[in-house]
């Protein structure tokens, strides 16, 4: 029963991944990607990590997908159809490469040899339930039943440094991305600004309002 559920969802997931990779329309590709993210969340549920499943949906579908869609809308290839796409030959070559990678990984998974205390991967069927960790306090069952608490405990004890660094990284990413995005503020391509006779420094800080779609009247933006 549970195995067939897994197979069904995996098949959908692989189909979604292929859809992301192959669909020419970028928004469609992003939709397939959302489906793929969702399937990953389902896999997390099947692995009894429901907290991570919720995080997956929250971060990837709620935020990253939106960001990707906004990115698509902000670049010109909005109709989604890529201006240039790889030729059939390159596709075949890279497809063969992908298959080769899969073959290598699959062989590695199948041929993994275990040690006496750690069985081979292909032999593992059951899931360990109740062994304790380093402190002997948190068992795996605790983690499964209340993963949020375990994650919080771990984050405030063993993972304090990575946690703070993650905060730093987020801030750096935010500052960097805002700085980059604001640099694009002037809607015109940089070449054109240069040609017009002034450098970026005296270009208007917030960009020229022309060609920027806010009011519907200015919607048909002059194409450069």
């Amino acid at each position, binding site marked *: 029963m549970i195995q067939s559920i897994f197979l069904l969802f995996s098949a959908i997931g692989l189909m979604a991944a292929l859809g992301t990779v192959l669909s020419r329309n970028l928004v469609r590709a992003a939709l397939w990607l959302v489906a793929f993210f969702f399937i990953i969340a389902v896999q997390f549920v099947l692995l009894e990590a429901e907290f991570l499943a*919720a995080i997956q*949906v929250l971060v990837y*579908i709620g935020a990253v997908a*939106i960001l990707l869609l906004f990115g698509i809308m902000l670049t010109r290839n909005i109709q989604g159809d890529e201006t240039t796409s790889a030729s059939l030959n390159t596709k075949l070559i890279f497809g063969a490469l992908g298959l080769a990678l899969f073959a290598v990984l699959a062989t590695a998974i199948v041929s993994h040899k275990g040690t006496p205390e750690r069985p081979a991967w292909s032999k593992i069927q059951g899931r360990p339930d109740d062994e304790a960790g380093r402190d002997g306090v948190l068992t795996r069952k605790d983690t499964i039943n209340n993963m949020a608490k375990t994650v919080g405990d771990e984050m405030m004890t063993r993972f304090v440094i990575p946690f703070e660094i993650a905060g730093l990284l987020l801030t750096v990413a935010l500052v960097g991305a805002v700085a980059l995005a604001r640099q694009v503020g002037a809607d015109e391509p940089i070449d054109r600004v240069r040609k017009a006779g002034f450098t970026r420094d005296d270009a208007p800080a917030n960009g*020229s309002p022309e060609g920027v779609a806010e009011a519907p009247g200015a919607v048909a933006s002059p194409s450069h």
Partner: protein
Amino acid sequence: MTDWACATLLFAQEIAPREIPWLAWFLWLLIGFFGIFPGVVAYMVWAERKVAARFQDRIGPNRVGPLGLLQPIADALKLITKEDIVPDAADPIVHLLAPVIILVSSFLVLAVIPFGVGLAPVNLPSGLLYLIAVSSFSALGVFLAGWSSRNKYALLGGMRAVAQLVSYEVPQVLSTIPVILFTGSLSLVSMVDRQYEFGWFVFSPPGFLAFVVMTIASIAEVNRTPFDLPEAESEIIAGYHTEYSGMRFGLFFLAEYLSVFAVSCLGTVLFLGGGLLPFPLNRLAEWMGTGDWPAIVVNIGMVSVFSIKVLGYVFLMFWVRVTLPRMRVDRMMNFAWKYLVPLSIGNIVIAAVWFEMVLRDPIKRMAQVEITGDEYIPPGIGVGLKGWIVTGALVIALFLTVLRVNRGSHASKIKEITESPIPLPSEAPALFARAR
């Protein structure tokens, strides 16, 4: 087993004890789920029209049935018999997918709300996170609706709506954190349990601030006046559902009211104690020593209290809608990022202070009581009072700081604009060239 399944199973076994496979139970519960909530929502629409009419000194729907009570059914019939027009230019699959995604998201949100004891459809260990996660689907649906219509106004409305939804989701999520802090769990059921012991969370300074932020953010999340810019008909026709007609439009409509209901339930559960009476009254049964009442009686009481609270919350939303005009788009975004987000971030720290001052000790003692079986002594009134004064002062200080920072930056902007030199006419061509 899910809470809801359990409770209904228990009720049913009181009536007819027999073995029923869980699959059949699930189907039966689904009928309940999809029977009750759409019905509630249909009559919410009726109630809104009535309330709005009273506010505007009209009568409201009064033709179809007594008091216009059959109006929702008539509306549904009308929507279903309208022609379903899909523009030729639209992306047909995505055009169909968008309202379905939004509706699914607003149904799924309702799955973790505890309506009574054992009456949460499901009791997930990370229920609140699940709720936030599924509710973020709707931004995606809105975007797809705007994109797939291939209409400038729809796309513009969709983009605006998504920008608004994501902006207000931040304070909404951040203002739930005090509640999690007080409860120590993400399960909505244990949040209600904790409020049974310590009173409603809204009765504490950080809780109150969080409640206010949450309410405002929720109104924006469900796109209602004064935050209904995505469908500002005076600017962008009808926003992202410009190209939707017939029942597809009806799905958007249903989803909107369903999410109004859902956020009201969420606010009730998080801050207003779910189906509990205010603090002294909820212990009444315990103090009267009448023992355990049958689950069915308790639940009837709890569900009615819950419904009254939700109705009040929904009425508040109606009231806001008929009273306030629509905001300007830049002010709306400013309000989210410059007022609500700093307020809710500061509030997290204040909530921790409140927890340390007032809640930590009783929680520890209650845990001990469970182990040792001693009698539980409630903390003295002095502790609570001190906590009230300190955190209340902190909340007011935070509020004033945020206000002052915003006012300050606003004033400096005005000064900058008014004191900047007016460009001479000779500069005009250069300015024009620059603008091009």
